[in-house]
């Protein structure tokens, strides 16, 4: 069992295994299920993610509140008609992240990764990167175990919910998880995955959770978009050999301390940040009335 990213990387190195393999074996040991059973369970999650992405990139409907919906379709259309400045692969990851999070806002079926509010980033990047790398279904399932291993460490040493640690804990964790998984799928080392986590998470530190009207929609959908972009760039940086000056576990520890120091008004309470802007308040009144 690993408790830190350093221990995880060390295990990969001494046993000459990938992060995904260590996670599969650990889950099998702690749950008493066979490795195949554990893999089958993850395949079910993969199928749900695929359905959400496929639904989100074609369905323009708005959510019940009317706050979000249709942005993934706009991005897909833009990518077909124009040459995106930031590159097709990056924008594909962004659009699929938005798609998943929009389906979530519509009370559709999603897989929490690690939470529902941040459910777009891991599948969004996965379904963009996998075709590019010609990854098969097994590699796609492994992507989820690698992401899960990183989330597992973050959840046990810091937090993964906006109410506990702000959006850095939610979208931030998902971004670090995705960055590590992209690196492994692209053939990078466990150490490079760890560096990608540090680079990605550092750029999410301090991110507050300030949902307008208290709903998981604004700014969540667009933060999932940027989380996906951040994960892609962090993965490329790590694959290029760039290292984080601050070790990954210390970045996670910093995220924890920042979350503890964050005022409650910025932890999913809708009392501060974007939720407390004049327009945020107006939208809240429009949805819930003055009560």
């Amino acid at each position, binding site marked *: 069992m690993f408790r830190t990213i350093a221990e995880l990387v060390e295990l990969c190195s001494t046993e000459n295994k990938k992060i995904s393999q260590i996670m599969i074996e650990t889950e099998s040991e702690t749950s008493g299920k066979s490795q195949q059973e554990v893999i089958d369970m*993850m395949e079910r999650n993969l199928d749900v993610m695929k359905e959400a992405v496929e639904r989100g990139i074609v369905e323009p409907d708005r959510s019940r509140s009317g706050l979000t919906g249709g942005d993934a379709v706009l991005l897909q259309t833009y990518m077909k008609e124009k040459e995106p400045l930031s590159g097709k692969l990056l924008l594909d990851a962004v659009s699929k992240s938005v798609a998943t999070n929009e389906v979530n806002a519509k009370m559709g079926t999603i*897989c929490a990764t690690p939470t529902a509010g941040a*459910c777009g980033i891991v599948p969004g990047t996965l379904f963009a990167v996998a075709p590019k790398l010609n990854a098969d279904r097994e590699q796609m399932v492994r992507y989820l*175990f690698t992401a899960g291993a990183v*989330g597992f460490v973050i959840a046990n040493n810091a937090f993964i919910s906006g*109410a506990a640690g702000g959006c850095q804990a939610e979208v931030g964790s998902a971004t670090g998880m995705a960055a590590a998984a992209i690196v492994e799928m692209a053939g990078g080392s466990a150490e490079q995955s760890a560096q990608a986590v540090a680079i990605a998470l550092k750029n999410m530190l301090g991110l507050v959770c300030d949902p307008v009207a208290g709903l998981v929609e604004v700014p969540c959908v667009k933060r999932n978009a940027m989380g996906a972009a951040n994960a892609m760039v962090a993965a490329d940086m790590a694959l290029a050999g760039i290292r984080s000056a601050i070790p990954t576990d210390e970045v996670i520890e910093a995220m924890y301390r920042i979350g503890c120091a964050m005022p409650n008004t910025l932890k999913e309470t809708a009392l501060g940040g974007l939720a407390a802007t004049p327009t945020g308040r107006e939208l809240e009144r429009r949805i819930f009335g003055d009560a």
Partner: protein
Amino acid sequence: MKYRSVFDIIGPIMIGPSSSHTAGAARIGLLARNLFGNKPTRADILFYGSFAKTYKGHGTDIAIVGGILGFDTFDKRMTESLSIAKEQHVDITIRTSDDIPNHPNTARVTISDETKTVSVCGISIGGGKMEITEVDGFPVRITGDMPTLLVWHEDRYGLVAAVSEILAAHKINIGYMDMARKSRGAQALMVIETDQAASEVICQELCALSYINNVSSIAAL
């Protein structure tokens, strides 16, 4: 460690939009339902904190009622749970409290029928995970991660040994055990997490012991 499985991180499969406000709430409702044992005719739900402020927009009411009806987090009937409850003649009351809870996402669920009532307090701790912090006024900690046995009893010496002996005889391994009592010699509640689920036969054997008032065996969520 707070999280024990990779599926706590990648998962649950759920109906959006919030793992805390919908999936966690649904699991509080489902655990209450499993503890109750059958479909209730009444459910009184009291929301605190963030649940109280945003339950309408998040569909927390829909989710918790879905759980009370026995739906899992990914059940597509979830979005229709309020009308399904009506069809099934389950009387639902939803209220909010201004009290400041220990955890921002707290719900109190009291479910009943003509013969019995169970009251639980649950917190949704993020990522779809929840903890039951109170059962019938007893402070507890039930996560739903493992099969759990609840034994309501009178506070007498030797009862813990008697209960664990029966479990041992049936080769049921205890992972975690906790006992809450309101005062010495009064009513008490044992919460026992086990590796294997306790069968109906085991529950009957436990119920037959002196000073045991009720036993409930709930599967892992």
